[in-house]
């Protein structure tokens, strides 16, 4: 690539959101006929940087050159006009419109719509690169991978020469991923510039020609993929050489605490999300749940917590003192806690579910405790002292307990949530993606908290996405694949590749 003119040059790009610096004087070149991997941890500023190319954000400072001309990209339309197209992680599609309507949305052209010509052109693109799209299908009838295909066809239809894909494989099965990668290679060979945002090292190695690493909003490395390796890239991502080294105390005094049998869950549309899932969670151990995202992890935890309608099966809680079995299915969260079941749940969506963003720390602590007592008035004193205790013990960085939690950073939000959930001395603790988006230090704080719970005899269920973490933290790992149990392995002896295989094996058949 040396010598050729970059399709895009970004120079000294800076973007801040309030007090957080998302991008700090970033320099980045993108070349034609090359697949560039933009690697970085969650929150390292990858997506923000690319959003400034696609016109979603406007940089606070810095310059962008397209084909050596300085440009100002103020809207997605400007980006399209420059041949830049981005496929966002959350698809930007209008549900009630058809694929074809979504594809031509916002394009200029004849006032009257000629849908036949549009359909023809879409078919042409599809056959060129090997996509499979029905232009007349409504988006709400489509699977995730179909939607992603529509997104890619959309940017190609607009003549995009530079394609940016934001974590495109997060929602795909391995087969779909392979298909996507082969399409991307076709496009690269066709002379297009491709950027893929990811935090998965194996993907970087598999698909990219060059890798740029971002850390805390700064460009910390720019190397051809062939000349680097996973260890080096990890070092660049996290800043220092780490073997994760998560503490894993030996489980003590294990007793069955939660027995799940033949659990089957369907969503509103009747799609099976979990099928025939059985396992036992023991006190004093951490049971990890691994799987590609969207394989039923959320439904499993929500079904146990009483938030999800269950088709069939049972979830029995075994009371630590009396050893009595209590059936949880068919009860709502309120009924579950009133039966004396000490179940805590740290959901994936912290501000949308676990906490109320606009409320302050005290009021968020109250979520669990406000019902206490017979008085019609809610007790604010004990939540207030709990909030103060959590802030102090977990070192939450906040101006005070009367600050709305949405103003805290991701790590601090999570500390508040976890702090509240463990404050009720649970006997079962469920966490979903507990360290997603957190920096290294906060992540370790959370691991420590979870380990401490384990040592106190709590049965911990830890849904994670990073296999390395799961393998170092958990005592046993249940692998989900397409809503089914693919297997349960020992955390100490399991091999990462085996677990990876189990995650994808069943999915291969059930994914379509």
């Amino acid at each position, binding site marked *: 690539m040396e010598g050729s003119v970059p399709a895009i040059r970004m120079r000294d790009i800076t973007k801040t959101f309030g007090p957080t610096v998302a991008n700090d004087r970033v320099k980045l070149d993108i070349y034609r006929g090359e697949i560039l991997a933009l690697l970085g941890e969650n929150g390292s500023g990858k997506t923000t940087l690319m959003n400034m190319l*696609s016109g*979603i954000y406007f940089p606070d400072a810095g310059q962008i050159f397209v084909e050596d001309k300085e440009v100002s990209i103020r809207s997605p339309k400007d980006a399209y006009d420059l041949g830049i197209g981005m496929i966002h992680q959350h698809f*930007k*599609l209008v549900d009630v419109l058809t694929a074809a309507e979504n594809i031509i*949305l*916002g*394009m200029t052209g004849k006032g009257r719509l000629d849908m036949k010509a549009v359909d023809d052109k879409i078919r042409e693109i599809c056959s060129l690169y090997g996509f499979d799209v029905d232009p007349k299908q409504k988006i*709400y009838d489509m699977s995730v991978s179909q939607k992603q295909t529509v997104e890619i066809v959309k940017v190609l239809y607009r003549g995009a020469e530079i394609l940016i894909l934001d974590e495109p494989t997060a929602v795909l099965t391995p087969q779909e991923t392979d298909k996507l990668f082969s399409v991307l290679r076709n496009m690269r060979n066709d002379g297009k510039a491709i950027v893929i945002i990811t935090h998965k090292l194996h993907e970087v190695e598999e698909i990219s020609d060059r890798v740029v690493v971002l850390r805390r909003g700064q460009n910390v490395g720019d190397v051809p993929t062939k000349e680097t390796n996973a260890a080096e890239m990890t070092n660049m991502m996290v800043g220092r050489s780490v073997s994760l080294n998560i503490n894993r105390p030996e489980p003590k005094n294990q007793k069955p605490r939660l027995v799940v049998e033949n659990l089957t869950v369907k969503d509103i549309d009747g799609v099976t999300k979990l099928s025939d899932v059985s396992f036992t969670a023991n006190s004093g151990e951490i049971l990890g749940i691994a799987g590609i995202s969207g394989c039923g992890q959320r439904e499993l935890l929500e079904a146990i917590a009483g938030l999800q309608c269950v088709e069939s099966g049972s979830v029995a809680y075994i009371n630590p003192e009396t050893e009595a079995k209590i059936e949880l299915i068919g009860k709502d969260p309120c009924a579950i806690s009133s039966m004396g079941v000490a179940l805590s749940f740290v959901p994936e969506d912290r501000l949308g579910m676990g906490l109320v963003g606009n409320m302050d720390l005290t009021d968020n602590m109250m979520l669990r405790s406000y019902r206490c007592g017979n008085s019609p008035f809610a007790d604010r004193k004990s939540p207030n002292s709990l909030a103060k205790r959590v802030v102090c013990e977990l070192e939450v960085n906040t101006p005070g307990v009367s600050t709305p939690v949405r103003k805290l950073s991701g790590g601090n939000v999570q500390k508040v949530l976890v702090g509240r959930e463990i404050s009720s001395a649970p006997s079962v603790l469920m966490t979903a993606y507990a360290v997603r988006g957190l920096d290294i230090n906060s992540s370790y704080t959370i691991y420590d908290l979870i380990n401490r719970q384990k040592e106190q005899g709590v049965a911990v269920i830890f849904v994670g996405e990073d296999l390395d973490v799961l393998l170092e933290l958990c005592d046993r790992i249940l692998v989900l694949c397409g809503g089914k149990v693919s297997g349960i392995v020992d955390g100490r002896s399991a091999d990462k590749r085996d677990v990876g295989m189990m995650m994808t094996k069943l999915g291969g058949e059930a994914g379509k």
Partner: protein
Amino acid sequence: MTQALSLLQAALVFGTVILFGALGEILTEKSGNLNLGVPGIMYLGGIAGLAGAFWYESAAASPNALLGLLIALACSVAAATLGGLIYSFLTITLRANQNVTGLTLTIFGSGVANLFGGDMNKMAGGVGQISVATTSGAFRDTLPFLNGVGVLSGLGFMVYFAIILAIIASYFLNRTRKGLNLRAVGENPATADAGGVSVTRYKYLATCVGAAVSGLGGLYYVMDYIKGTWANDGGIANLGWLAVALVIFARWKPLQAIWGSYLFGALFWLYFYIPGLTRSSQELFKMLPYIVTIIVLIVVSMRKKRENQPPASLGLPYFREER
């Protein structure tokens, strides 16, 4: 038979007022703006048209009907658009709450209209009732080739204009590029934005054009139904809210609004043609359009058919860098 015919005619006249209001509101709501200022906008359109015609007729020695008509139309459209512009500026640029802004616009519009309407009545002196007979006549003239064609005779051109507008609106929304973009803005502004549609411009234009169309409903009411006079009786406000109801009834589809509007008109006057009703039970009959709307609203929400739902972002503000 004559009873049925006269009900039909009343339904057509009333339906046309509602149809204009509803068409404008459909355009507006398709952009995601729930404008509860429709009655206010119809008031503005009505009074401005009347004032324009009044000013022209009192200034000219022998007023020309066509010119009066054009002036009335122009004034009406201008005033209604201004109303839409106020709403757009507050909700889109200044991000004020849509419901509250819409209701304020209704208060403002009815205040302005009734203030000036009352004033003009005073200025007209004498009987205390202004009248723009020439212009109003032009609005009420039967189309030449329809004279004596049963129920159609006696209907002004605005009746057909409303139907044509509905067809145009339907074509625009479903068959044109801009219509597609507009629907996308109302469903999912972030997506439309990412696709290169200027959300702000579409919202502004849809709301202002929608207001202009709604305003014609007020004008038609003033010029045809009350024959170029003014009355501070809240008649326009009632029809304005019926227009909001009709949007729901028609499930945001302009073509459905055509027959819906005549049905509403018929339901509104039905009591008049049912023998043996006391005056009190007549009032109960006037509930029908609203009750029918409520039933449609409930049924649509129960069946959850995607195509019949309100635009998904209806009533919500859009701010690109919100985070």
